[in-house]
């Protein structure tokens, strides 16, 4: 079994290769999100959970979305696939989610249904509850096929078995007739992935797919997703709060804070050269392996995330930022491109780390 390690290493390398190819060939993005602004009607008034998010997703890449709970990462992605409760959700009229030239926000519910599961698949955080407990997993996979393909019953079953095999479910012919509760968490997550992928979507949105799993299972699932991306060419949006997962699995990363993107960068750049103080602080506050920091205080970010009901006028990170200056509290910085060449990154900061001086003085 140890030989697998080598194989995986290769896989990762390849995927990075592809991303690089895409970006250099300036392949057209498969999904363009522009100025996405999603609000909710609540008992205490309207609250804007996602505020002006824009990004592109290219075929075959894994885009990481990272941030703390409540920062808007899940809402962003549920907005894309329009799974938020209609009654309380307001999409800003200016928002655009452009999928292959169609604005998803403008589609009717039935048109959207043809997209969901078919063009865009989704994986959820809790494999324990994401599957319907009263149907067999085979039924649940076949159901998706039934909506989006013309396969007959036996073909659907064959396809479902095939999918289970694809997600490395042992003994799929037997397992297909089992109920979710008969499977372990990791196995259930595989089933959820199989459902998401059975119609071969162009985009796979994975919302914290490994948070509820143990580390040894987490690595299995991450490896599996990467392998599948390899085979199907699906673009993945990977939502997580775990920077370790991001480092392991993503090509590009979006860091969100209080409903906004604060930094967007290729993964290496983000980890080695974070521009936004929040990103930097987040990286620093992780316990590091090795003896250097053992039993020392961690450089924690003091304070708490501002409430979405009561956002500051200026930079939303300002009151926790060690580098804040007067300007930060006065006005909200834009998400601007910082850096050079292919290592291009964007940050929402007046004084980005590294060339903070320069920007700061220029202004």
């Amino acid at each position, binding site marked *: 079994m140890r030989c697998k390690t080598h194989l995986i290493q290769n896989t990762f390398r390849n995927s990075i290769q592809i991303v690089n190819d895409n970006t250099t060939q300036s392949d057209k993005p498969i999904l363009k999100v522009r100025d996405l602004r999603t609000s909710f009607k609540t008992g205490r008034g309207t609250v804007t959970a996602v505020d002006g998010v824009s990004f592109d997703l290219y*075929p075959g890449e894994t885009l990481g979305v990272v941030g703390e709970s409540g920062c808007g990462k899940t809402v962003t992605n549920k907005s894309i696939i329009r799974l938020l409760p209609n009654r309380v959700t307001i999409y800003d009229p200016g928002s655009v989610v452009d999928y292959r030239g169609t604005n998803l926000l403008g589609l009717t519910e039935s048109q959207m249904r*043809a997209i969901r599961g*078919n063009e865009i698949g989704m994986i959820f955080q809790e494999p324990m509850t994401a599957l319907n407990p009263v149907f067999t997993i085979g039924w649940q996979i076949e159901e998706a096929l039934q909506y*989006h393909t013309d396969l007959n019953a036996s*073909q659907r079953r064959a396809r479902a078995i*095939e999918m289970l095999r694809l997600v490395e479910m042992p003994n799929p012919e037997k397992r297909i007739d089992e109920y979710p509760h008969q499977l372990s968490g990791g196995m259930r997550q595989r089933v959820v992935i199989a459902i998401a992928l059975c*119609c071969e979507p162009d985009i796979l949105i994975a919302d914290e797919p490994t948070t509820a799993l143990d580390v040894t299972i987490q690595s299995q699932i991450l490896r599996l997703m990467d392998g599948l991306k390899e*085979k*199907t*060419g699906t673009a993945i949006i990977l939502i997580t709060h775990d920077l370790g997962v991001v480092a392991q699995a993503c090509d590009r990363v979006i860091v969100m804070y209080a409903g906004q993107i604060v930094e967007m960068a290729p993964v290496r750049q983000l980890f080695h050269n974070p521009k936004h103080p929040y990103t930097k602080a987040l990286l620093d506050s992780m316990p590091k392996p090795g003896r250097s920091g053992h039993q020392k205080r961690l450089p924690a970010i003091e304070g708490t995330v501002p409430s979405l009901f009561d956002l500051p006028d200026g930079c939303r990170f300002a009151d926790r930022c060690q580098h804040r200056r007067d300007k930060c509290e006065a006005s909200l910085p834009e998400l601007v491109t910082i850096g050079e060449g292919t290592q291009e990154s964007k940050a929402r900061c007046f004084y980005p780390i590294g060339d903070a001086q320069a920007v700061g003085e220029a202004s």
Partner: protein
Amino acid sequence: MTERNAITSLRSKFHLSRRTSRTVWRLPTWSFIFCLLFCGPMQSICLAQSEVVLHLPMQTAGPNSLDPVRGSSTYDNIAASYVYETLLEYEYLTRPYKLKPCLLEEMPEVSEDGKTFTFKLRDDIFFQDDPCFEGGKGRKVVTDDVFYSLKRMADTSNQPKSWWLMADTIEGFDEYKEEQNEAEEFDYSVPVSGMVKINDREFQIVLNKPFYRFIYTLAMFQTSVLPHEAVDQYGLKLSRHPVGTGPFLLDHWETGVQMVYRRNPNYRDVRYPSDPGMLEDGTAPYLGYEEDKALGLYESAGQRLPLADKVVLTMFPIPQPMWLKFLNQELDYSRVPAENFSQAFIKRKRTLRPSFVEKGIRVVPLPLLDLIYNGFNMEDPGFGGYSDEKKWVRQAISLAIDLEEVNQAFYEGINLLYDGPIPNGLEGHPEGHSAEVNYRGPNLQKAKALLAKAGHPNGEGLPKLVFYTSRQPQSVAMAYMSARKLKKIGIKMEINSVDFSELSEKLREKGAPFFGLAWGADYPDAENFLQLFYGPFQSPMSNNFNYNRPQYNQLYDEVRVMPPSPERTAKYEKMRDMIIEDVPMIGSMARTRYYLIHSRLKNFKPEETFSNWVKYLTIE
């Protein structure tokens, strides 16, 4: 481009082709399907009009037992009288009541001393066809059947409710009862000295004394004649499976809901009474003849009975459905409950409201031989007793209670108030309904004065007056009304509303100091009311008051063997006044029943002292 190839390959493998958006079943479409569920088949009832069917109500959940010996309530009486017959019956239309032979050829011959009665049965009387008989054919009624039926009243295993009718009446019967009940098996074949069989059709009954009321007893449903075959065959089930000689057969009985009777095809030739015509001296042959004639009660004269082919008797424990069914023409008549009186009547004239008249509804009033009273237990240490003081206390209570108010509040003022125990229409009823000396309230001054005289000014020193009454909301409300009056003279009254069974228990134990009850006439003779106060009839027999005054008992012993005469009436009045003076009971009220009938119902002259008149009814 590699990833695109991968997709194509998979797709070709599984013939994947993307569907265009599907048409969806919208939710509202389901609602139609569910709505369809409601469209069940509706049908209307069609009544076969070829036969005459009477639809009559009964204001109760229904009779318990149709066995003449076991039954006790009025409702048992009514339901049994369709099927069973007695030796004598009352003439349907004649008033005052007049007995006539029913199973008998002629009225019994009474010997000089009034103790021996000689009977002769009709020759054409057969029991109803029933499987209990050989070949299922009803056999002829013979003397032994009469004796057998009477003897059943003595058999305690039958739990007879009416032994008091026979107690100390027929020669040797009491001894017979005692002997047979102590024996291992009750032997019906053992003769009773007072029951003398002459032949199969003729027999004599010898009494201990010339009890005048005996003749009435023979018209009461408890003495109905039934065959021993039915008892042998059905045992306890006889209660639900009557086999008699009457005009109707019980077709089926849905407990608590309905009883259906059919004409007895073998019923002997009995005819509707013929018009007697005005007497030669120009007077009516009986009270109310002109009215009967005008109402067309003689239109069916001479027709063979019963006039109806089928009778549907429906039970109504609650009034609303009965009212609705009556208004809806589904019932032929209905009693008007007192509470509803003013809805149906112009009170001033006691005539129906125009809205009812328009529907062709007619009203038939029936004053009842009723005694509604509140009784004292004369053996109660608190309020019983015969000393003057105790008497004054009771008189004071009587004076405090305002019966007129009760009458107005609960009976729309239609009840008749009178003094003493003898209702209107019987000998001994006080003239103008009011005795010369009486303690009818309200007269609080006098009441207070009497209380003070008795040594209890403002009720001091008197225990709580514990009153037992029925659970019926109306009775309870009445009790509270009286309690408020009594409070004014300082007497506290505690009210216990109990079921009739509990009340019976209390009375049997002599445990109810004060209680609300009513007595309806079994036969039209004041003796039936006066016996309620006869000492030897104390609880557990009919004397609930446990009233026991030697003079009274002596008078009663005298009157019960007297035929109607002015002397007897005088004695009745004397007894009445004793009761009024001693106040073992506070009263009295008699109800008037108002029957509403639809115009289609013919020959309707209701009666509650006897109940076998359904055979005369018919509809157009």
